[in-house]
């Protein structure tokens, strides 16, 4: 049996260490991993806990992230609780196997520390890797700080392993700002955390020799569509399970989570939609503008990016006049993903707010309070005049002449 760790009521952990503790408390059976900045300390932490006797499991050192996720697929198909971590280029190298994992319905947990994708090579945080995973069939949850990285990693096991779900789950946090910044964390005790998640219950495990089973079948046009349709329904249907796990978690810890987090949205005229650490920055500005700027500002953040909270977004924005969707990934010739998702939802609403797309923070560029204030001010102008005062897509915080597209 693994040794228990003496956990204080409040610990000072960064996002990586918080995620590593969550993997330890979940008593993950197999971690197959390849290191990459800034997520390395997560699997390094698990390996240290394993070496020190605090977890019963196996650490498999592999030659690449493709192999890491492949090892995870094999271990999960065999019937184990499995997790790993990656970022950026590593995530991109895993991409092929991510689709294998979700198609085979293996509830692997992937802690992703978000980082920009090359080229140019960059180790800082943006959301390029997170967006790369958005059609992969994984549930994607996003932490805005270290406490949430810990909480969501624990909950990810309970969500993904639910018999009604059985899907892999990514838990995202921002590179460095969350992953390497030590904050006060209130963890659960080892016993409470494990009791909350529960013992892993395998489904169709390959190590059950009384029921031999083949994983990884090939299907062509005669079967592929049916299987992908079933898989899509499974992720759409995971929504009530996620809600239930969030509810149970709140009962245990008092910390409340929603698939969409809204801040000061009850009477908001203008709102920012964002992901990651920018959410907390936007909240500060929204509060300040309400108190000192005369702007009824709010912040909306999809806690669960996949399945996308299409209907909740529509409800939250039922009375909003202007929205800014902040995308921290270069959209490569389109509007940003958040913009497209939110506009898609609002097109089916009676309310038709003016929606603007801001591209910001690429490669770890800071999003300042002033920049957010300027965005809210422009939103208020849009709300007052009933039309876009600037272009629909704008770049914020980039040097050079104003870069903007589409009237």
């Amino acid at each position: 049996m693994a040794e228990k760790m003496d956990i204080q009521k409040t610990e000072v952990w960064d996002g990586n260490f918080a995620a590593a503790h969550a993997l330890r408390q979940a008593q993950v059976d197999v971690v197959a991993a390849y290191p990459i900045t800034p997520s390395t300390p997560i699997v390094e932490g698990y390996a240290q806990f394993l070496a020190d006797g605090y977890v019963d499991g196996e650490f498999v050192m592999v030659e690449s992230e493709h192999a890491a996720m492949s090892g995870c697929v094999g271990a999960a198909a065999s019937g184990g609780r499995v997790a790993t971590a990656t970022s950026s280029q590593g995530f991109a190298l895993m991409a092929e196997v991510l689709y294998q994992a979700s198609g085979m319905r293996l509830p692997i947990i992937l802690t992703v520390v978000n980082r920009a994708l090359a080229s140019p090579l960059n180790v800082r945080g943006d959301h390029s890797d997170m967006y790369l995973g958005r059609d992969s069939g994984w549930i994607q949850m996003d932490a805005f700080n270290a406490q949430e990285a810990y909480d969501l990693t624990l909950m990810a096991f309970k969500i993904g392993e639910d018999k009604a779900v059985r899907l892999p789950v990514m838990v995202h946090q921002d590179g460095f700002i969350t992953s390497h910044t030590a904050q006060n964390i209130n963890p659960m005790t080892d016993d409470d955390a494990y009791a909350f998640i529960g013992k892993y219950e395998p489904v169709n495990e390959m190590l059950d020799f009384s029921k031999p089973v083949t994983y990884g079948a090939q299907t062509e046009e005669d079967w592929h569509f049916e299987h992908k349709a079933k898989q899509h329904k499974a992720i759409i249907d995971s929504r009530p399970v996620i809600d239930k796990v969030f509810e149970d978690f709140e009962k245990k810890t008092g910390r409340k989570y929603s698939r969409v987090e809204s801040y000061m949205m009850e009477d908001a005229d203008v709102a920012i939609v964002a992901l990651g650490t920018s959410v907390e920055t936007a909240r500060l500005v929204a509060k300040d503008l309400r108190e000192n700027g005369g702007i009824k500002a709010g912040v909306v953040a999809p806690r669960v990016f996949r399945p996308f909270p299409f209907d909740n977004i529509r409800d939250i924005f039922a009375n909003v006049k202007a929205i800014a969707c902040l995308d921290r990934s270069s959209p490569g010739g389109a509007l940003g993903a958040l913009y497209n998702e939110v506009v898609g939802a609002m097109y089916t609403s009676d309310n038709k707010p003016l929606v603007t797309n801001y591209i910001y923070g690429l490669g770890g560029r800071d999003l300042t309070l002033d920049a957010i204030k300027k965005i809210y001010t422009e939103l208020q102008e849009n709300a007052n005049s009933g039309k876009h005062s600037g272009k629909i897509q704008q770049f914020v915080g980039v040097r050079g002449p104003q870069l903007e597209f589409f009237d």
Partner: protein
Amino acid sequence: MKQSENPKFLGSEELLGWDEVNQGILLNSFVGEVENAAFLKQEERAYAETNSYTASVADWRVIKPVFNRDYCIDCQFCWVFCPDTAIIARDKKMLGIDYDHCKGCQICVEVCPTNPKSLLMFGEYASIEDSLEEWPEKKSEEE
């Protein structure tokens, strides 16, 4: 559930809807639970229809091996080397070829040590009787 018009490919005996296919595209080997399946003969095992044993891949083959009992010494070389377990042998006795799974690779012919060979390749549509009649004579040492 509709019956397939072309039940030739794996698991397609009945074309299921998205709500009926299994989770994770799994292929079960057997119906229900099995015990000591390794000690049962193939015909005694409760193969599932998703097991390739129940599907014919005979149409992958353009030439086929024919077995001639008259020269076979039951050395089991063909049984050991066949990459598709398509040599049927029981109690170390060579019985013949599983033409549902043989792909015509002719490895069995290559490894057969008898003179003349007890396995030779013939056209897919040649009859077994004709093939046996055309069997070559024993080669002398000078040849």
